[in-house]
């Protein structure tokens, strides 16, 4: 048996506390967890005292120092950013990819390449056809990867798809693209040694983490968009990098702009307690570029943190094959990133302390996590 706690604990600690990120790590393992519209629900209890659902959840407490040491032996550890082997500015060489992406389309290009080259044999991605109602998608052919171009702001429970794929026991090198909560869950999944399934941990081929400030409440976004446009006519939703801070809703009748001030109140509640901006658990973590050169310089470009050797190898391959275009990332970029990441960590700790009313109760956060322990004394 796995884990030390079970579904009743998960329900009490995470679901009832509304800490659930709806990553889907607990869904698809058993018949008792389901998701709908960005919510995870336990429809019945298995009545077992211990379970994978609790062990995999990114919002249950884990020994983070140990988890980091198991998987990140190759890089330098930066408290604000996690494991670090380098920072690059990239964008997809293919204009078609770039045209449909939020930033530079590097994730799509990398996943496509990894699959073509056999680095991964399949991938769990997120697809959002009309800007809303995204869903997890399993692909095993490189030509299907582009269906998942662009970002979605409602976060779908994609790891349900991963769980089902692992159960199917057909693919051996599965790539996973996901927000920080999801990629953390993937590492917690790999960390467990299953008596019943010793092969499972090694079946993850590559993890692509996405920088994430926050996600938006599923129904909140739907209501927001609905108040401004007819949902059926929405084609695409994006938050392009700019100093103006707007969400762009492309509809069949033209573009609607929603200031981010209107979006902040409908940020997913659980995202306020997230301390990871850069997806610290990943082989490669990718986000929009933020350099000191300004918005115009950054627009259409990604920034990639390389965290593992296998991540670096894929990035090198992308350079060799000409799949990505590269720009030198200035040292100032790293400082900017550290600062942004650190801000998110501080906000999360603050929000948690406000929620618990107890500086010593950090809920799921591990006070000995090396990415947090420096911040904690000043927070308290």
């Amino acid at each position, binding site marked *: *048996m796995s884990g030390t706690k079970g579904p009743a604990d998960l329900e009490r600690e995470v679901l009832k506390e509304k800490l659930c990120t709806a990553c889907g790590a607990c869904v698809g393992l058993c*018949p008792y967890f*389901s998701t709908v519209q960005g919510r995870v629900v336990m429809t019945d209890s298995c009545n*077992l005292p211990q379970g994978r659902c609790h062990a995999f959840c990114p919002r249950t407490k884990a020994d983070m120092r140990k988890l980091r040491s198991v998987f990140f032996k190759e890089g330098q550890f930066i408290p604000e950013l996690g494991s670090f082997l380098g920072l690059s500015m990239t964008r997809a060489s293919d204009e078609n990819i770039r045209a449909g992406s939020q930033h530079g389309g590097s994730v799509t290009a990398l996943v496509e390449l990894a699959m073509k080259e056999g680095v991964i044999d399949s991938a769990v991605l997120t697809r959002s056809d009309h800007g809303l109602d995204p869903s997890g998608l399993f692909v095993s052919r490189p030509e299907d990867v582009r269906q998942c171009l662009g970002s979605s702001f409602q976060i779908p429970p994609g790891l349900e798809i991963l769980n089902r794929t692992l159960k199917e026991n057909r693919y051996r090198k599965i790539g996973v693209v996901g927000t920080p909560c999801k990629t953390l869950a993937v590492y917690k999944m790999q960390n467990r040694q299953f008596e019943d399934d010793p092969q499972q941990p090694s079946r993850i081929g590559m993890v692509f983490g996405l920088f994430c400030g926050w996600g938006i409440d599923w129904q909140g976004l739907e209501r927001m968009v609905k108040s401004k446009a007819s949902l059926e006519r929405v084609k695409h939703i994006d938050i392009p990098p700019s100093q103006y801070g707007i969400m762009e809703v492309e509809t069949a009748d033209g573009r609607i702009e929603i200031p981010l001030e209107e979006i902040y109140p409908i940020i997913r509640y659980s995202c306020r307690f997230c301390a990871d901006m850069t997806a610290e658990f990943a082989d490669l973590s990718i986000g929009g570029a933020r350099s000191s050169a300004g918005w115009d310089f950054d627009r259409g470009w990604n920034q990639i943190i390389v965290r593992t050797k296998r991540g670096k190898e894929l990035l090198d391959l992308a350079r060799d094959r000409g799949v990505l275009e590269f720009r030198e990332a200035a040292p100032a970029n790293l400082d900017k990133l550290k600062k942004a990441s650190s801000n998110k960590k501080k906000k999360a700790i603050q929000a948690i302390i406000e929620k618990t009313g107890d500086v010593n109760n950090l809920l799921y956060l591990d006070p000995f996590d090396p990415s947090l322990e420096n911040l904690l004394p000043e927070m308290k």
Partner: protein
Amino acid sequence: MSIIDLDAPGQTVLMMGNEAIARGALEGGIQLAAAYPGTPSSEIIGSLAEVAEKMGIYVEWSVNEKVALEVAVSASMAGLRSITAMKQNGLDVASDYLLTLTITGAKAGVVLVVCDDPSSHSSSNEQDSRAFARIGDIPLFEPSTFQEAKDMTQYALELSEELKTIVMLRGVTRISHARGNVTLGSLPRLQRRAKFDTSSPFHYAPVVPKHALVHEKLARAKEYFEASPFNRYEGPDRPDLMIITSGSGMAYTREALSLMGLEDSVGILKMGTTWPVPERLIGKHLPRAQKILFVEEVDPFLESNVKEISADLTPALEISPRTFYGKRSGHIPMVGELNTDRVVDALKRVLGTPYVPRDAAYAKRVREMNKEFVPERVLGFCPGCPHRASLWSIKNALKLDDRDGFLTGDIGCYALARTPSGFSLAKTAGAMGTGTGLACGFGKLGRFGFDQPVISICGDSTFFHAAMPALVNAQYNRSNFVMCILDNGTTAMTGFQTHPGVGRNAVGVPGPAVDIESICRSLKVKVEVRDPFDLKGTGEVLTRLFQEEGVKVIILKRKCALQRLKGESPPYKVHIDPDKCIGEECGCNRVCTRVFRCPGIIWDLEARKSKVDEVICVGCGVCADVCPNSAIVKEEA
């Protein structure tokens, strides 16, 4: 094969009480019978339906008990004898017309049989329907034996015709469903021609003079009852105790007296006509004993009426006030069915007679023996029942919706929605159609902060019976809830009687089927129709419906598993792959046997795996979609 039309006067045959009543109706010359099925009354009209063609009578399953009564009374008005039969809850439905009918009066003999269900073996209440006889000033019979069940029915028809008013006959489960010897009379085969005499209308106005007429009829009935052979005294002239009893109480009383050896010291006044109570008869027997014990089912009906008469008569009889024992004194329990033990217990307390029926360990030994011979079963849906699948989807959709939604239950097999077999979903239970009526109201509480989704359920037969007006009300008043109609194509719980949606009438003649879907669509409510065995599709529709405003109907259509068995072979051969079944491990922990709970799957205690019970599995294959590990395999049969 029915025995109720056996043309053998004088022959004694074994008959179920309900059959005896049906036989009495035939001997009494009925030409029409109508009812809505309801346990324990269903076999009365059911057995008449079987012989309808041969006997040249008209028999129908009506849409509800009120309509059944109206249909029966129409025959009476047109000069034909008729009968209707219902359970106690059905009488409540019919009571609106019943209590006016006594004012308007009837013409040819018409009898209403009501079968009470003490201890509520298959009912939603424990009711003493004799109260209706008193409220409505209706002559009332209570058979104590199967012979009486037949004879009283026949006589009740004659009395009804004589008095031109409806007459009631009250049975209980143990009369309806037990069997005993009945000596048959002749079948008269009345062949009256039906004709409504337009010069003699049946109006209730003017009510007050007609009410007076009702009391005159009642007084005449009382006169007949004073000399009725259905009332009789047995026992010593001056007993230590006189028991006044009626109905099934008679058998328990006799058995108790015999067990305790009290036949020579305790007398029994058995009453077969219990409303109006024949006063002179009571006055004749009251002086026999100082102590009087009442033994009757459910309410202290005889007890109250006799005590009332006793208060009036005692001075004239020049006797000391009697001491009465019964429900009011606590010697007979106020609730629950009578049995011999209860009568024995009352006798012990009244007479101070010590009696030990059996040694204390006996009951324990019986329980232990039972364990060996009778497998332990909990009340639940049959293997392959579509209701289990429907409720499974409703449960999941309500959980996914996550707003503390709930289900309002109704009357039918799906009343089991309150039990673990129905995932304990139903949070309210009431009368026929109440689920939808309540949902109607809940759906209007939004302005007071009510934000829980509500889903009502009802069966196809219940839809026609009483849920339809609630749905119309919901649409008219713009309520907000989901109504789920579990359409299994029959009136399953009472024994597969036909109903308007089936396309066949009570005697099996094909006819137009009333289409539930079309009715709902005509109300302009949103209607979805799904196969409950499609768990995924049903779940998705329900999830969507919970989010939509207004009145939504989902019809989950699948033939009753028991009915299907009669004509079709199982669609799938189901087995469980033991290599794939992960049993109690993380990832399942027996979802099929622990949560889904179809009795067709059993838990193998030794192998720690599930397996199919091939004897009772009907091959519906739904469990295959519940298993998380594809261990349950369904193959086309």
